[in-house]
């Protein structure tokens, strides 16, 4: 079984490495600023005693006032996992840096989030719709979407 790493342990490391990057640290999730997401993820992936080298999923939630993109990372070597969160506060054209260059598995899942929630991932190699067709009006999983 994979044990969730308490966010506290990671936060102290992240705060030392990237001061000001961590906005909020809950019991099991770390909320980071969007502009430092890529650096934080790279640090979590490559640092020796962390080695979060496996991306479980990318998903997103619409909270009306902001969108939250959620990443779950797992360290296969240390058998632990952690949840990263990023928020974007604009409703028209929200943007988050892409992790597709870091984790290959993020490629399709970020496209899915773009397709259904309308969040653009900056630096993604192929940012276009994946399930719905070209010309579909709007993003159906947004709370304010109506056909």
């Amino acid at each position: 079984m994979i044990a969730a790493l308490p966010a506290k342990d990671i936060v102290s490391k992240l705060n030392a490495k990237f001061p000001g990057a961590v906005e909020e640290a809950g019991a099991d999730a770390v909320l980071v600023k969007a502009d430092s997401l890529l650096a934080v993820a790279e640090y979590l992936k490559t640092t020796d005693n962390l080695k979060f080298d496996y991306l479980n999923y990318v998903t997103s939630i619409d909270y009306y006032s902001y969108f939250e993109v959620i990443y779950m990372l797992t360290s296969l070597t240390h058998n632990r996992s952690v949840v990263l969160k990023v928020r974007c506060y604009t409703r028209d054209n929200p943007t988050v840096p892409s992790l597709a260059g870091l984790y290959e598995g993020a490629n399709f899942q970020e496209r899915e989030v773009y397709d259904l929630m309308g969040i653009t991932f900056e630096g993604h190699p192929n940012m276009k719709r994946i399930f719905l067709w070209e010309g579909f009006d709007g993003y159906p999983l947004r709370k304010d979407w109506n056909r």
Partner: protein
Amino acid sequence: MEVNKDYFYDSLKLDRQEGKLIEKTKAASRKTIPDPDAWLDEDIKRNIVVTSLDWVVNWARRSSMWPAVCYPACCGMEFMAYLAPRFDGSRFGMEIMRASPRQADLIITAGTLTWKMAPAVKRIYDQMAEPKWVIAMGACGISGGIFRSGYNVVPGYNKIIPVDVYVPGCPPRPEALIYGIQQLQKKIAKAKAIPNLSELPNPLKRGKE
């Protein structure tokens, strides 16, 4: 050497073309497809007279229905059970599945159809040779089922192709499908397979009409 760039496809261009095709299918679905059973009512009113040649042709047609491969979702599992030895679909002359629609004369639409898939199903139907029949299998095939209000689900196959027999259930048991197929066979038995000579275009009378 000059390279003809027309043969290189831009993926975004292809996507846009696909999107246009889907929107076209969607727009066309607003028009109701005429009921393929309308002739059945008329013939019953007039009392059915089927000649012996009709009877032979209809017997051949209804006893060797070859279904096309078109199973978008979970009703396909029940269809597999129907074809497998326990329910044994070959008793009804349809053990041969046809991957090519040109050799098939029946679509059993087992499952939810999304709008993205709809042009493909329409294309399979259009490629089949006459005479052809459609069985809408399961709640999704009939009306969209529990996904009916979804943004990407076709609310029933009869929005895009004419349906002959509806088999309800979610999914229907193989027995239900067998009953539906028998109903279709009964319907085919009533069809007038050979047209009257007077109704055929006469090549000798060319120019007069």
